[in-house]
Every structure is written in structure tokens, then in C-alpha cells.
């Protein structure tokens, strides 16, 4: 298992809080998020729209526009360095060089007026000071690595000449050009068809081993998580509600929201019974419910009233497995009984 606790911690987020100032008031998008990404692992962050998963990812690379974004607290430790205190110059070194990002929509991330090769090459010219000639050679090599056929010809093409799947690969090629130690992939396959998704995920995992980096994967697709992640963090309303290895979180879910998500998705192998949707609506981030943000939608809520007043902390339920629920033990037992 690569969820090994002894592996080097690459990135450590500590009690991060981010809000956005809007006309309607302060939107508390991220409210105390802590997690670690370790060398060589695939760490997935799962949640629905508005859960704060993308905001967390963007903040790592300092990509949030401020204002309206405001870091209210916490630390983003990259090794021994807090990236929140880093200079602009230092952040430019980190971005692309040490931590690279893959976005959902390659068309917005790729520049339409430059060739694919120039855009990949630019990474190594900037970060490594490679010559134009060497950078192009490197671009061809990277395109080959992500499985683009005839890379030597394709390197001179423009993004519009690529299909959706090829653009996504080109973006991956760009992201890995400097062999970053961490790849942040924000919904990298959501815009792709499922057969192309399979190709891109295969490339992503192959690359990870090839360049020995870690992947932080942001997604809403539980299938993708089950398939490629080592560890997973489930987010709801700007907070982590459960985290652990994929086996722990899927097989011994200990937070009612995680259970709700699992019960909401059908499986293509037909092994999922009746769907049980989560009642109600996600909360407004302007007015989060008191206590546990999930309590108005929680089907275990009858258990207690402190859910409505006390924010549950992320507590250990077994080694490496944490849940933020006052009644995680009862919830987990009920779950096991339901599944039996």
C-alpha cells in the first residue's frame, strides 16, 4: 500500500481558512482544512460543488485572486517553507517547477496563439534556462511520454488542432515538463468522454511513477477515486469530514455525508442497490448552519442535539482514518449493519 504513514510528507496544509468578500457578505469557502500529501501517493479530494476543494487547491499555488479572496489563517507548508509567506519570485519558481497544476478545461489553460511545443518548452526555458532548441526536443519527449502519437510532428501544432483528449495530454505534458514533485489535478477528466478518461488516467498514473511525483487529485467522481487514489479526503461546506485510505473511507465510512455520497451513486457493474439521495440542499456558504454544517441533511441526526451547536473535530476512528462526526462510531456500526 502506498498510503504508508512513514513516507515523506511533501505538502502539509495546517488549519487553512479562506474567505471571499462578496456583495452579499463574506463567503467562508474553506474553514479549517488540514491534510498532508506524501511523496509518491495519489491523494484525492472529493466533494460536491461549493465544498471548497478547488479553492484549497488554487490556494496552494497562490492562484486565488485577492481581493476578493482572503486567507484568514493557516499555513501551507512545502517542506520547511510556508508558501503563504513566499515572495512572488519564489512562487514563480514553485509554480510549474516544483508543483504543477492540471486543470479541467485544457482550452482555457493552453494559449491558442502559440504552438503546443512552444508552450511546453516555455516551462523548461523559464525554469531550467534551456535553449530554444533543447526546449523543443524536451517538448517532443514529453509529448511522447503522455502518449501522443507522432510527437515530432505534433509539437508544431496549435491547441485547436488537437482533440479534447490530446489537449488534456498536452496540458499534462506541460505540467510534467519540469518534473515537479507534486501534480495538482483539478477534475482532470471531467470534461472527457469515458474511454478518453481511461486513457488520460492511465497516462497520469504512468507519469507519476515515471517522474516519481505525488498527485493531489480533485474530483467529484467516486469511481475515479476508487480506481487510482491511495488516500482520500471528503470535503463538505469548506471542511474535511472524513479522511483515510480509500479502503478505510469506502469500506468503513464513518461520516454520514460520506455514506450519503456512496449511496447516491449507481455502479456500472450493477452492484449498487436502491439509490438513497441525501435530503435537502447544500448550505449557503454565506450562512453556514451552526454546529456540524451537515446536520440539517443528516439522516443520523436524531442521535443527538450537540450536532446543532458544536462543530465536530476531525478525530481518529482507526489508525490513519479520521472522521468529523460526534457519533462516528455509531454511524459506522449502523452502516456496517445496513450493508450486511
Amino acid at each position: 500500500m502506498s498510503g504508508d504513514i512513514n513516507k515523506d510528507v511533501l505538502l502539509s496544509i495546517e488549519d487553512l481558512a479562506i474567505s471571499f468578500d462578496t456583495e452579499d457578505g463574506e463567503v467562508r469557502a474553506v474553514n479549517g482544512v488540514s491534510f498532508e500529501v506524501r511523496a509518491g501517493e495519489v491523494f484525492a479530494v472529493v466533494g460536491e460543488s461549493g465544498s471548497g476543494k478547488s479553492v484549497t487547491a488554487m490556494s496552494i499555488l497562490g492562484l486565488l485572486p485577492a481581493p476578493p479572496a482572503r486567507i484568514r489563517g493557516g499555513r501551507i507548508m512545502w517542506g520547511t517553507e510556508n508558501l503563504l509567506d513566499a515572495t512572488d519570485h519564489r512562487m514563480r519558481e514553485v509554480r510549474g517547477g516544483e508543483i504543477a497544476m492540471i486543470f479541467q478545461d485544457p482550452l482555457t489553460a493552453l494559449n491558442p496563439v502559440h504552438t503546443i511545443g512552444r508552450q511546453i518548452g516555455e516551462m523548461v526555458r523559464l525554469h531550467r534556462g534551456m535553449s530554444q532548441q533543447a526546449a523543443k526536443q524536451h517538448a517532443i519527449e514529453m509529448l511522447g511520454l503522455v502518449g501522443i502519437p507522432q510527437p515530432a510532428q505534433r509539437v508544431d501544432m496549435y491547441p485547436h488542432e488537437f482533440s479534447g483528449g490530446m489537449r488534456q495530454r498536452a496540458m499534462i505534458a506541460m505540467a510534467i515538463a519540469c518534473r515537479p514533485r507534486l501534480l495538482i489535478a483539478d477534475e482532470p477528466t471531467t470534461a472527457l468522454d469515458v474511454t478518453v478518461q481511461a486513457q488520460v488516467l492511465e497516462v497520469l498514473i504512468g507519469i507519476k511513477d515515471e517522474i516519481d511525483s505525488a498527485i493531489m487529485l480533485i474530483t467529484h467522481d467516486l469511481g475515479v477515486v476508487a480506481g487510482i487514489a491511495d488516500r482520500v479526503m471528503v470535503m463538505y461546506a469548506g471542511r474535511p469530514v472524513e479522511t483515510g485510505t480509500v479502503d478505510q473511507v469506502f469500506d468503513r465510512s464513518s461520516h454520514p455525508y460520506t455514506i450519503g455520497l456512496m449511496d447516491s451513486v449507481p455502479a456500472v457493474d450493477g452492484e449498487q442497490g436502491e439509490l438513497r439521495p441525501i435530503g435537502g440542499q447544500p448550505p449557503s456558504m454565506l450562512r453556514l448552519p451552526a454546529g456540524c454544517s451537515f446536520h440539517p441533511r443528516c439522516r443520523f441526526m436524531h442521535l443527538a442535539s450537540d450536532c446543532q451547536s458544536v462543530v465536530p473535530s476531525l478525530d481518529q476512528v482507526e489508525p490513519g482514518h479520521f472522521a468529523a462526526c460526534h457519533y462516528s462510531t455509531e454511524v459506522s456500526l449502523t452502516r456496517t449493519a445496513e450493508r450486511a
Partner: protein
Amino acid sequence: MSWDRPPPPQDLLVATDVVKEFDVRAGVLQRVTGHVQAVSNINLTVHSGETLGIVGESGCGKSTLGRVLMNLLPATSGSVRFEGREIAGLRERDMRPIRARLQIVFQDPYASLNPRMCIGEIVGEPFLVHRGMNAAAARPEIARLMETVGLSPEHTSRYPHEFSGGQRQRIGIARALALDPSMLILDEPVSALDVSIQAGIVNLLMELQRERSLSYLFIAHDLSVVRHIAHRVGVMYLGKLVEIGPKEQIFSAPRHPYTRALLSAVPVPDPTRERARRRIVLVGDVPSPIDPPSGCRFRTRCWKATEVCATHEPVLVGDESGHAFACHHPEPA
């Protein structure tokens, strides 16, 4: 209600050799330089009370097919019979009574609801337009529909922007149900929604089908949802129906290599089962429909393709169970 109507025929909708071509234009003068067959010789039947799922990747023609079947887009050729009546080529005026019986729900509940109309007006419009009711007479009908789809009747005076995505999709379904249709075409009805909200809409659709013996044509790219909701499934690739049959056979024993690859590509939300699955990763991308491959359109990505696949287009042949596939080298049964 519908007790005074004759029972609907068993075959509610029958499409025969349906073709939809679009012009391809190029250059500054936008001259027609060719045609693209978005839907190519489709034959299918939707039975009364069943859900026929149509799956395929982007550009396979599934959404175009849905629009052609309900004559929102005119078919280039072929026949579509609905409740025993030919509807392909009908003028808009003659389509009106049929529209009451055959409705569509779109993917994007944000784009398909008029932002300047309140929910009562949106859901009640069919009563005014088709039934000639006045607003007062329609009010109890609107309240009844709102309850049917799980919305509070007190919200009729609110506007679409005041609702979440899932609630808006419920409004779209309420509007489609207003005139007591026998069939709904559901075009990706849950794909814009968060997963926890999707399940509620899927359950609502299944419940409505049981209560009203509705028929659905459920168009989706999400095979897991289709497996959950459909009785029979058709698989499209580049405008062609490559396989169709009872759900269990399509998902458990697919005969067309494309169906098999497609199913294998969908990850299962369970780490243990997911690790045990074997994935067929197709090479390349879907070719351009403007210039589809000769013979079998899937051959350029198929690991089983031989010479015959390039020269002879496989025909859709079926067995007595209604499982049909178009392939020269089918997977073992």
C-alpha cells in the same frame, strides 16, 4: 385524466431508418461543402411503460436522435411513428396535439427555464397554451404538479434563479408532465447535477414511471445511471446504433467490442471491486463524423478489426431476446 382514452399501443414509438444530416459549411461564403450524418439509419422501438437508455460518447448523435424522434429537428429521411401515427415531417401546427403526449426534459435546467417567468407560469403554460385554461383554472393543476415532483406549491411565485439545480430540474419535469404525456425524452437529465442531488431526480423519474406507466427515452453518457434506470439499452457510435438489447445482456454480456470497451472504462465506486476489473483502453479518439471510416465506423479503434471491417459495413442483427449488434467479430456470448 386518461381513463377515456384507448389503451396505448404496445409499441409506443417506432423509428425506422431514421437519418439526420447536417450541412457542412466552409469558407468566407459559408458554402455547403458536404454533409455530416449525425444520425445514420437508426431503427428502434420504445415499448409502452419502459425506459430505453441511449448511451454513447460526445458526438455520437444521441442528443440529435432525441430531438429528431420528437420532431424538434426534422428528419432527413426515415419514419417515426408515435402512438401509431407518423410524426416525421409533420408541420408544427399538426405536432401540437402530439407534443402534449411526447415531451422532452433537457440537460441544463439553468438554460431551459425562462428566467423572467415565475415557476407557476412555467409549469402552468402548457395548460394555457394547449388546454385554453385561464390562470385561475390552472392554479390547482399547477399545485398538484409541484407536489408530484416534490416541490412546495407555495413556491409557485418564485423565479428560477431562486432554486437550486436539482429543484430546477424538478420544475422542468413538472412542466413536461403537465399535459399527461405517455412518453418523455430525457436528454442527460441528471448530468449537470451534483451526485447527491442526481439520486433524488433518478428516484423521482422511476417513481413517476411506476405511477403513470410513462415511457422514457433516457439519453445519457453516464452508463452507471443508465444501468440503474433503463430496461433496455442502445449504444451509439458515430451516428450508428451498434448494439441494443435488454439491460442485463448489454451490461453483463455485451457483444459489440465498443460496448465492452465503453463499459470497462467506467470506474466502479468501490476500491475492492475496482481493483479486480480489467480495463480495455481504446487507442485514439473518435474520428470526425464528417469523414467517417469506411465499413464499420468503429474499426479504427477496434482491437479486433480485420480487412472485412473496412470493406463491409456490419448490419445490426438480433436474436429472439431482442439483443442485436452490428459487428463482424462479436464478443463471445
